[in-house]
């Protein structure tokens, strides 16, 4: 006898074995001849600039935060959906109040502009006669959190 979560466990094991097995077999079979440009991070053929772990824009955090709150809201919907048929209107009103409360938060972040992603203004390289193209770099203030 195998339960539903037993199947999930089998899937997990098969997934891990599949990936790990592929990596191990490839590691055993492949020749090992590294050189710097082979070891470099692949960046569509460009020479990679800087480190991967640069600091992100704070807007990513705000979006992740909004996602988390509405994630929890969706989790609350599941048990409600299971019993909705038995309880009828009462459960409907309850959930309407719940969703209405969070809709206030949604309206707030929308109104305050946390959802719109402001595009960085393109910086056109200044061309002046005789000087050539001016280097344009972001200032420290522009990349601050």
């Amino acid at each position, binding site marked *: 006898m195998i339960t539903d979560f037993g199947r999930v466990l089998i899937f997990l094991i098969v997934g891990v074995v599949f990936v790990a097995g592929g990596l191990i077999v490839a590691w055993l079979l492949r020749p090992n001849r590294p050189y710097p440009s082979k070891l470099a991070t692949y960046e569509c053929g460009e020479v990679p600039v800087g480190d991967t772990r640069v600091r992100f824009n*704070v807007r990513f*955090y705000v979006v992740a*935060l909004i996602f*988390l*709150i509405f*994630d*929890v809201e969706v*989790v*609350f919907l599941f048990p409600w959906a299971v019993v909705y048929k038995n309880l009828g209107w009462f459960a409907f009103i309850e959930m309407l109040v719940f969703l209405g409360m969070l809709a206030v938060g949604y309206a707030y972040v929308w109104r305050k502009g946390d959802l719109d992603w402001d595009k960085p203004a393109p910086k056109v390289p200044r061309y002046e006669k005789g000087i050539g193209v001016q280097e344009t770099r972001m200032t420290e203030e522009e990349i601050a*959190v």
Partner: protein
Amino acid sequence: MEIPLSYYLCLSVVLFVVGVAGVLTRRNAIVVFMCIELMLNSVNLTLIAFSSFLGSITGQALVFFAMAVAAAEAAVGLAIVIAIYRNKRTVDIDKINILKW
């Protein structure tokens, strides 16, 4: 042969103690945050173990609400960490001592 209740309790004791050790010794505020999540998880595990062994589902309802509050706590806590970072340029809890007497 079922796993007895005390095994689950021992597991959550270990998890909780590991979390306490992390909160007391680490300096990065975000790692301290992760350790708090560990402790929260161990407490949830205890609640579910008792709820399951006592045959009552009330503990599970409690854990459900605890998870919702944990999500809110993580959101606000990390926002505070980011606000502190913006002002002081550090998340080292040794250097964030402006409220300490």
